[in-house]
């Protein structure tokens, strides 16, 4: 409470550094930001939250006059020290970097990959006339000031030689080079591991303490909660709610804000629905359906239930209560991995172990979570479980039969029992195909079912019906079948990917970061959908994520991976409430705001 109070006093004393009144931004006559107003005073932090595409970044760029030639920006006031709307290009360039420091959203690609980090940081110094001789010294100081170890060495390195966290820091250092009064940080912590994320937030906090003003943009409420004095909640280009942070988060007035808060998964949200959408209406029994499919192939559409409201489904599924206890152990293991290892030859020709001695069991109806930082070998382990990558050592069995170590030919008939939702949904679709064709490709071909010639697709009507059913099952409009994946939103793509996985009616579903590319509200819908599906179909889920909150929300049991090894495993609550391994402890400690759980 104390730092915020100190800042609060400062804020009323000084004149505003940034004043925005009725800001509207349109592209090609299509308005994407409407009537945004706020002020920023020295030492103050304004947070802007809202889901993807709500206009946060566009608003930030408007402050710098960098919306590009296609943008029409209007406002009654748009003052950042100069009037952005009327100032000359020259005057704006003076302001950029000197008065306003801007940290772009995509930290990993916002540094020119061909320039050394030092050059990048020196750029504002060069542009704003700092003599060449002074620059190297300043660069090192700046790097040191954002806690980059060995600044002299780092300055000489290329962005690709730096980790994500270091890159983000270098970017912040460049923005701070000329000691601007205002720092705009656009999603400074997304795409970073929790541990690194914590460090960046610490850095921004120091910066605030040093008296600079901060505009913090994020879709992550917990991040904003930690730094901002004042919050704007944006939705569809409009500010739907604003006010002091604690007040907005503790007692959200606007339904959208409330939804946003409710959507954050965590230990506390286990068994609860995250979204306010009704549960997906799935009531078919896959096993029964499979039995029917053996006989007939005609109109075996995924049946839809009559009625069925979201009300009771919003309760925790009964099966899950059991699974939480010793349940899974009693049910039948479908996928068993033992001693999986994988090595790759690096560019230097040396072998690198990316997965080492990983074992697990996955039982029917259970969710096994795998958590770990980026590059810890999660996807590789999953690929081995799917037998898409042959393990260097160890083996996998599916339903008790060997799954790895046999020729692909023998695996192919059984492939449909285990399905995958890949890490990056977009790139997992053939870009030429429509959603419908993508799903049709996954449907069992009539030939395979009937064992007859290729006179399939004649029953095009059935397939169309099945595709429509699949789309409805994941809560999508069947009309989307004619769209190309590229034209879909992230959430829609992820649903299509899930629909494709369901098309084969699998017993095991491998979900590799199924929600990491989605913003909270969409993430909530997808997580709810997965829970509904699991309940309805009884599939086993292998759920991979780097987000502890998500993992805790969905998993019955959890594996924690680091550097290719499993460092800790157990039930979700055991592992995440009472972590034993130092790495797990570090992860849990870095979670930004345990108190948000209570708010939600």
């Amino acid at each position, binding site marked *: 409470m104390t730092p915020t109070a100190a800042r609060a006093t400062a804020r009323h004393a000084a004149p505003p550094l940034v004043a925005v009144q009725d800001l509207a931004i349109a592209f090609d006559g299509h308005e994407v930001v409407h009537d945004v107003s706020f002020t920023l005073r020295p030492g103050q932090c304004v947070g802007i939250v809202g889901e993807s595409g709500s206009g946060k970044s566009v608003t930030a760029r408007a402050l710098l006059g960098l919306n590009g030639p296609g943008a029409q920006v209007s406002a009654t006031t748009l003052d950042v020290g100069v009037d952005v709307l009327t100032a000359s290009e020259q005057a704006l360039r003076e302001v950029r970097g000197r008065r306003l420091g801007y940290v772009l959203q995509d930290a990993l690609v916002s540094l020119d990959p061909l320039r050394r980090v030092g050059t990048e940081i020196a750029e504002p110094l060069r542009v704003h006339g700092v003599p060449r001789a002074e620059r190297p010294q300043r660069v090192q100081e700046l790097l040191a000031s954002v806690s980059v170890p060995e600044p002299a060495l780092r300055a000489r390195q290329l962005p690709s030689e730096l980790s994500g966290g270091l890159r983000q820091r270098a970017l912040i250092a460049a923005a701070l080079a000329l000691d601007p009064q205002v720092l705009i940080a656009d999603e400074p912590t997304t795409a970073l591991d929790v541990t690194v994320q914590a460090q960046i937030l610490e850095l921004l906090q120091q910066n605030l303490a040093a008296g600079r003003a901060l505009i913090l943009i994020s879709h992550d409420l917990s991040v904003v909660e930690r730094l901002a004095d004042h919050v704007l909640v944006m939705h569809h280009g409009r500010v739907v709610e604003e006010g002091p942070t604690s007040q907005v988060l503790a007692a959200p007035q606007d339904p959208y804000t409330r939804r946003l808060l409710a959507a954050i998964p965590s230990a506390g949200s286990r068994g609860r629905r995250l979204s306010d959408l009704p549960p997906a209406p799935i009531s078919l029994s896959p096993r029964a359906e499979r039995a029917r499919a053996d006989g007939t192939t005609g109109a075996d559409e995924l049946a839809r239930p009559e009625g069925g409201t979201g009300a009771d489904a919003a309760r925790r599924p009964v099966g899950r209560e059991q699974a939480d206890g010793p349940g899974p152990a009693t049910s039948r293991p479908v996928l068993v991995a033992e001693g999986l290892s994988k090595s790759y030859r690096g560019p230097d020709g040396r072998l690198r172990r990316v997965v080492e001695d990983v074992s697990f069991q996955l039982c029917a109806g259970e969710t096994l979570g795998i958590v770990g930082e980026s590059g810890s070998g999660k996807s590789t382990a999953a690929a081995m479980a799917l037998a898409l990558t042959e393990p260097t050592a160890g083996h996998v069995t599916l339903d008790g039969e060997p799954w790895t170590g046999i020729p692909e030919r023998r695996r192919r008939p059984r492939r449909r029992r285990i*399905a995958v939702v*890949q890490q990056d949904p977009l790139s997992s679709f053939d*870009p030429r195909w429509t959603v419908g064709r993508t799903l049709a*490709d996954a449907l069992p071909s009539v030939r395979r079912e009937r064992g007859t010639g290729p006179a399939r697709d004649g029953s095009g009507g059935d397939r169309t019906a099945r595709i429509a059913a699949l789309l409805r099952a994941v809560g999508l409009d069947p009309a989307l079948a004619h769209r190309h994946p590229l034209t879909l*939103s992230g959430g829609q793509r992820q649903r299509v990917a899930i629909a494709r996985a369901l098309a084969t009616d699998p017993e095991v579903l491998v979900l590799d970061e199924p929600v990491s590319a989605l913003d909270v509200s969409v993430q909530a819908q997808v997580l709810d959908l997965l829970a509904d599906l699991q309940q309805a179909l009884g599939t086993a889920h292998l759920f991979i994520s780097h987000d502890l909150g998500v993992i805790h929300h969905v998993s019955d049991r959890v594996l924690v991976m680091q550097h290719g090894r499993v460092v800790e495993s157990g039930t979700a609550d055991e592992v995440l409430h009472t972590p034993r391994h130092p790495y797990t402890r570090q992860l849990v400690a870095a979670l930004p705001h345990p108190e948000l759980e209570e708010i939600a």
Partner: protein
Amino acid sequence: MTTLAPPAPAPAAAQETAPAPGRARRRRPARIRPGLVAAGAVVAVVLLAALVPDLLAPHDPLEISLSESFAPPSAEHVFGTDQSGRDVYSRVVHGARQSLVIGIGATAIGLAGALVLGLLGGLGGRIADGAVTRVIEVLYAFPGILLALILIAVYGNSAVTQMVAVGLATMPGYARMVRGQVLVVRGSAYVEAARALGHPPVRILLRTILPNAFRPLTVLVTLGIGQAIVWAAALGFLGMGVQPPTAEWGAMLNAGRTYIQQAWWMDLFPGLTIVLFTLSLTVLGRHLQRATDAGALR
């Protein structure tokens, strides 16, 4: 002759990067672009000329008229006449077929060879890939003109030899591109998805890998056809072009070169035709690629 089909730059994986969510949805509706229409018209007229030249040409392209040589453009001869008094316009019209045959034929040969090499390299594993890379290197290191000259010396000068010669000369460029592209596609998540679905390799190859690997070739191919015509014309400069008096654009351009100071029309019109045609093909090709790239965004 620098302009044979370009070797692939870095495999164009970047094309696939998704636009920020929501951005793609807001593509402009397809406006009718005058450039595109003009390009389409040019290509259509050329195709028409190749199929039914007599529809467009008022004169026999081979009929000489000794008294009318070097006549400047007039109502009777809109593009003028050449050194033998032949009607340049009719020759340009009739030349379309031969030029197209050479251009398309050579490109097809180049592509077919590239396909075999590129697929072998892209799909065949380490050793095959190493071998293919070497073969491509060797073909590159060979001056294209040498290959063409030797082929023509060995097999005689015919449209087929020229097509093969130009096709071979352009092959390594395409091959490198196909190989790179196949490698990219092969490692892509959607191929993995297809494998995870249990599709047999042949089906994955035919339905997923091939179509995607060829997508970026469209522009190259459209460019390549124009280049092949120019290439064959360069052979004509060395006396190895199509047999006179066959009407063919490159050969006409080459013949007109001699008289450029007194009969500019002999060069201008075939030259303009080649350039316009190439330009139109490129415009169409780029449009086509953009359309397929964006996954038909409408």
